[in-house]
């Protein structure tokens, strides 16, 4: 029996390393290629880190970078302002609405972004009428786009603490609702809020569909545009944007991993509606 188990363990080890090395090559190759491709012209990387020269040489790219960074920051802010108080409030006072809120928040996962754009076009005609055609107006659409991910992260955070008891304790000590939100609940779901914000930033930095079809600019639109004139530069910018998103999402999985063994943070990042698991309160 022991021989069988040892033999199986060896077989599994061989299998494991075969699969890992073959797929590892497949997944690493594009990165190696991007490094090689973007260093063919030695001017590329020095130019990319020299902001004044970059914005002079490629104004559209510089504009896209600034637009994406502001969009990411504003979307994260709007998402938190909209979602955290609502999620807490519903848990405390309107538990029967929780299903509806969850349904609405997860709805964007079943509506492909390209479909959402079709419906958003008339809404954005009004947005343009009231607020102008600035790229920052995309923040409204992006907040909807990140809703499922942010909701899953924040909901997981709220499930891990006893919101009701915390709120009642604070209220009985004379705290107002504002104090309950900001000084009691928020510090307790700090890592969930951070997860939601990281996910939001990573998603917004990678968004292309809505920006390009609503004729606004962001990083991805600029990269795509640049690809037509300067392939090397566009690959270099792509690589930088990717590494940035990777760092963000890896930090996210570290936040998630520190608290519990299960990969809650990674589950929140899945771009599809996964099975609903009733979290243990």
């Amino acid at each position, binding site marked *: 029996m022991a021989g069988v188990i040892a033999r199986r363990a060896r077989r*599994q080890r061989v299998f494991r390393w075969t*699969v*890992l090395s073959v*797929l590892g090559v497949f*997944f690493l*190759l*594009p990165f190696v*290629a*991007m490094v*090689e*491709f973007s260093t063919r012209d030695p001017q590329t990387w020095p130019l990319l880190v020299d902001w004044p020269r970059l914005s002079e040489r490629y104004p559209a790219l510089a504009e896209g970078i600034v637009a994406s960074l502001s969009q990411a920051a504003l979307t994260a802010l709007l998402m938190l302002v909209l979602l955290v*108080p*609502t999620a807490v*409030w*519903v848990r405390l*006072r*309107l538990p029967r*609405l929780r299903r509806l*809120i969850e349904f*609405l928040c997860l*709805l*964007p996962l*079943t*509506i*492909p972004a*390209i*479909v959402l754009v*079709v*419906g*958003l076009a008339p*809404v954005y005609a009004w947005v343009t009428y009231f607020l102008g055609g600035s790229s920052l107006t995309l923040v409204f659409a992006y*907040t*909807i786009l990140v*809703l499922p991910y942010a909701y899953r992260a924040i909901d997981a955070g709220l499930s891990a603490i006893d919101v009701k008891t915390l709120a009642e304790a604070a209220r009985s000590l004379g705290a107002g609702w504002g104090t309950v939100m900001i000084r009691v609940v928020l510090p307790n779901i700090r890592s969930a809020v951070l997860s939601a914000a990281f996910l939001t930033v*990573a*998603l917004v930095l*990678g968004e292309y*569909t809505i920006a390009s*079809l609503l004729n606004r600019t962001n990083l*991805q639109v600029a*990269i795509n545009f640049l*690809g037509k004139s300067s392939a090397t530069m*566009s*690959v270099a910018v*792509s*690589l930088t944007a*990717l590494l940035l*998103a*990777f760092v963000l*999402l890896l930090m996210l999985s570290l936040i998630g*991993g520190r608290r519990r063994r299960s*990969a809650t943070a*990674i*589950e929140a*990042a*899945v*771009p*599809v*509606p*996964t099975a609903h698991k009733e979290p243990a309160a």
Partner: protein
Amino acid sequence: MARRPRLRGATALLGTVPFFAYVTVFLVIPTLVVVIGAFAGDEGGFTLGNVEALGNGYVLDAFGRSTALSAMSAVIGAVLGALLAYALVTAKPDGLLRRTVTAAAGVLAQFGGVTLAFAFLATIGLSGFVTVWLRDTAGIDLYANGVWLFELPGLTLVYTYFQIPLMVIVFLPALDGIRPQWREATESLGGTTWHYWTRVAGPLLGPAFLGSTLLLFANSFSAYATAAALVSQGSPLVPLQIRGALTSEVLLGQQNVGKAMALGMVVVVSVVMALYTLLQTRTSRWLG
């Protein structure tokens, strides 16, 4: 406490007004625009013309190609992703290997769009790293039979890049649900490895595998940015057809065909997701 409960409920509702107002304007109304627009004529009024226009050859072709691309990339992604997930399960549960690969999978499953397209252009584009290397060292021309990168085979390859990691994430929990005792039980009853996989683990994992494959299908069916960045000429896929309908002045009487196609996409994705949920309930019976 003096107020009546009903009134308290009403004031409590006020707290959710900002959220509902926002979601109504930017999510519910756009959804309704698509659904209603799909059945509205150019001058308003109910018509089935847009939905009937989906029967046109070019639209059917686009749906066919989108389905083929999604099915191929889902099956390839599911098989390779399941192998990778199994490789991870045989490793130490808390080991560095498993944690690194799951974290990387979480990141790569999100990786799509323009940057992914450019990554592959740098790799196997006409002057890409691998293309040039193969040509110079081995004398192999990747594109001897035409440039397939911008067509279905190329798109399938590129999509696989985010499908495999997604499969790892969604299939890993099911594999974790398999208990070693079941294998021991099979063995103590005289079963071989073959028996174990075909009679015990296979039937248990079957629904989970099928469900995950459906999830992958929906994922690539709704993907737009990667294809849009790679394919600049023609509109072989449904999302690209919708792009065409949005950006170009379409024929008179066809203004809402784009909405009908969008509705078609939602229907396909919803049906697939409903099947997935069904399979998921079956899975959770044993592998919860």
